[in-house]
């Protein structure tokens, strides 16, 4: 077996070995390797020391009335009015697909409202813009120019067109 320290698999191997979850074949290989590799032996010993330390923590006794209390709560829930039962239902699992769909619809609605020109046109919330005198003069000049362009052409112009 290639040394786990060199193959880069030491950590995972030692965790599984210490936990007793290593595949039987790998366990046999590792146990053959340990006597000849001090580094792996020390790593395994370190892991086992932690494992043994954690074994110190044994759980406390469970309350004798745990199950009785649970059954009482279940009975109370079962006897509750229908509306209260509805509140306790696992709505999350039912609404889970609906939430993103609703969010997508809301986003589309907002997009539509923001970009819809009709809504902009009818909007009465536009603020009055400050118009400068130069803008007014420019607009009047443009209007004059447009008037001249739309007026009938003078005789000289017509004569030149004929040519």
């Amino acid at each position, binding site marked *: 077996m290639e040394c786990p320290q060199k193959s880069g698999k030491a*950590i*995972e191997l030692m*965790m599984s*070995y*210490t*936990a*007793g*979850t290593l595949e*039987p*074949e790998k*366990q*046999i290989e*590792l*146990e053959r390797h*340990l*006597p*000849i590799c001090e580094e792996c*032996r*020390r790593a*395994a*010993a*370190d*892991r*086992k*020391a*932690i*494992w*043994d*330390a*954690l074994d*110190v*923590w044994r*759980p*406390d*006794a*469970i*309350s004798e009335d*745990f*199950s009785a*209390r*649970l059954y009482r*709560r*279940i009975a109370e*829930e079962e006897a509750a009015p229908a509306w209260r039962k509805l509140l*306790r*239902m*696992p709505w999350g*699992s039912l609404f889970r697909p609906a939430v993103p769909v609703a969010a997508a619809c809301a986003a589309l609605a907002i997009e539509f409202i923001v970009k819809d020109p009709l809504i902009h046109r009818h909007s009465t919330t536009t603020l009055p813009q400050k118009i400068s005198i130069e803008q007014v003069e420019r607009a009047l000049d443009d209007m004059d120019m447009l008037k001249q362009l739309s007026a009938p052409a003078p005789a000289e112009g017509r004569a030149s067109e004929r040519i």
Partner: protein
Amino acid sequence: MKFGHPAVASGEALSPQPSASERVREDMAAVASLERDAELMLRVREGDEASFSALLDRHRAAVIHFLYRMVQNQAVAEELAQEVFLRVYRSRSTYEPTAKFTTWLFRIATHLALNWIRDGKNEKSQESLDQGTAEGATRQVADRLRTIEQEMVYQARLAEVRQAIEMLPAKQRAAVLMHKYEEMDYSQIAGVLGCSESAVKSLLFRAYESLRARLAHMS
């Protein structure tokens, strides 16, 4: 406990490790157990309350012990465990055996524990490790076989272990507790935590390294 386990120092393998045949027998028993859980829960779905009681009896201790080590308060652990089984009961009509029952069970338990830790309630109600509590007295009464000195050493070591676990980030704590005390494999822990197996291995590696740093002197 001495550094350099005698068996390891002499070149022998760490013992005891289960043999290959023992492992196979354990695996077959585990598979049968998992199928039994799904079968019971399907019966609960059909309205069989006795099956719910059977599931409760099978898993109550594991869930409470896991929650206790997560929140380090027996009363809170039992309250959270009640909520776990209540949620299982409420979800009975929509249960589908798409995952292992224990994965689902511990997913609910981990979710509740992480929420409780996140909400910071442990600051208000966590029993002090330095104070004697009624539960501590119970432990001492149960371990009268130890001498007083042995009991003091045991309590000191226990306090260190509990503190080292408590100092782990919540997800690392959950991963270690499931790996060490519930003997779950990487894939099941990944199913509980909702992450990849490689993420679980990373969590465990960092957690065990932190524990090694804090508990090395105990060896």
